């Protein structure tokens, strides 16, 4: 009951940002998918009515330039951006509004409060950018609209970007909770998260990506938990 109350509060406070991120990704996705469809039509692929007899498709070109390529690039910015905004909203803004004292005196352990914030963020990511991305993938897979369905790898890529958004959220939380100066160790949390994002985007071996993301997530989460439990408010 306590956790649910905290979760509801965090979700409500995140609502404008998750709506904004979700709608932005949806708009960008629809725009690029429609544009891609028009390009395909201009190239002579009659995907609306099926292929004409004897018509061939340059599969290689299609695979090199998947329908969701451009929306994925946008997602790679939107997800970390959402992580940054939610991190600031949940951990930095209360320092200015001075609501930490009120929140922390609730009859709940500090880890429960942190857990509610993290859970709310995961839900926010899943139902905004996660749901929209999955929807866009499903749309791009429709055979009656696109000549070659989207590769499942593209769906996975999108969720990797979403995981990177969570890393940025934790990095922002860690930096916001730090009591050091911004130009000293305080920036480390956010800088580490950003570094992991760039390293992950630079290479595409799934095992490496998964290992790096999990390692960074565990590192940032354990640090955030340790700082949050002992921090003075």
């Amino acid at each position: 009951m306590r956790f649910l109350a905290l979760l509801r509060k965090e979700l409500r406070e995140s609502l404008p940002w998750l709506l904004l991120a979700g709608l932005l990704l949806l708009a960008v996705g629809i725009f690029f998918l429609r544009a891609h469809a028009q390009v395909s039509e201009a190239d002579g692929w009659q995907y609306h009515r099926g292929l004409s007899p004897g018509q061939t498709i340059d599969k290689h070109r299609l695979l090199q330039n998947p329908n969701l390529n451009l929306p994925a690039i946008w997602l790679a910015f939107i997800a970390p951006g959402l992580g940054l905004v939610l991190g600031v909203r949940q951990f930095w803004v209360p320092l200015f509004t001075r609501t930490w004292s009120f929140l922390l005196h609730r009859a709940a352990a500090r880890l429960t409060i942190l857990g509610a914030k993290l859970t709310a963020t995961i839900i926010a990511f899943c139902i905004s950018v996660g749901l929209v991305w999955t929807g866009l993938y499903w749309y791009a897979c429709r055979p009656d609209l696109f000549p070659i369905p989207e590769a499942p790898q593209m769906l996975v890529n999108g969720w990797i970007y979403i995981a990177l958004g969570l890393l940025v959220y934790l990095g922002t939380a860690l930096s916001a909770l730090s009591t050091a100066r911004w130009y000293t160790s305080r920036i480390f949390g956010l800088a580490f998260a950003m570094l992991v994002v760039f390293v992950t985007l630079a290479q595409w071996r799934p095992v490496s990506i998964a290992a790096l993301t999990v390692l960074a997530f565990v590192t940032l989460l354990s640090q955030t938990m340790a700082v949050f439990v002992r921090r003075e408010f």
Partner: protein
Amino acid sequence: MAEIVLETKGLTKYYGAGIALDHLDVRIPRGCICGFLGRNGAGKTTAIKLMLGLLEPTAGSAHLLGCDSTALPPAVRQRIGYVTEGHRLFRWMTIARLEKFQQAFFPKQWDGKFFADMIEYFELSKKQKIKHLSNGQRAQVSLALALAPNPELLIMDDPTLGLDAAIRRQFLEGMIELITRQGRTVLFSSHILADVERVADRVVVIDKGVLRADCSLEEFRTSVRKVVLHFDNSVPADVELEGLLHCRRSERQLELTLVGVDDAEVAAWADRAGTERFDFVEMNLEDQFIEFTSPPHRKRLFQWEEARS
């Protein structure tokens, strides 16, 4: 002897090299209404935050309801109400939503009728958003939220700061509502000494982080006294009285502020000093507090102005 619900032992807090609280030793028994007094920057908020485990002590400890403040479990926090300084609440919530939020942490204790009655008494509507409330109205909501779970111990950090006289009166009446419930203990810091005088039965005074008094209000009121001694000739150069706080001289008059000095001691010294007569001056709590916490050799404003010119 009454059970001690709040106890600090050598509670000390440093911020960098500066000391905010210096070995605070306080014991507050159950059922006590304790005014926590000190000038600005005396360390009241720091002490309260240390008691509630929001700050980590540099040394010493605080125990609330028998639990160490650095590890207050949720079950103990349920028994402690806290009204934060400035009544900082979630601005986007309505009063109804805030009630629901607060209620979730006190599923068995929450007195919904009491909360509704208090909101009605303060002429508020549950549909109002916190961000649309005035400072005084937020204070009232804060108090209702803190009282509705019927806490055993209520800690309030300057709850009447910035409120006008009428709202303060209402606020105090709300507080008295809790006090009338048996066995409840209240600790509240305040700058408004009239408020403290109205409701408190005990005072804790700190100055620059150091405990100066922890006694009953009655004891404090009778301990800090001002006496004016009149002389035919010039006033004596030295005043040898233990418990002397301040000494102000004029040509034929000596004004002494004393603490813990009884009438007989004053009379004996006055006799030795050759005074014509002496009178005790009536002091209210505010005067006593100011005298008690003022540095002994503080320049008066007009002296400072003279020095400038």
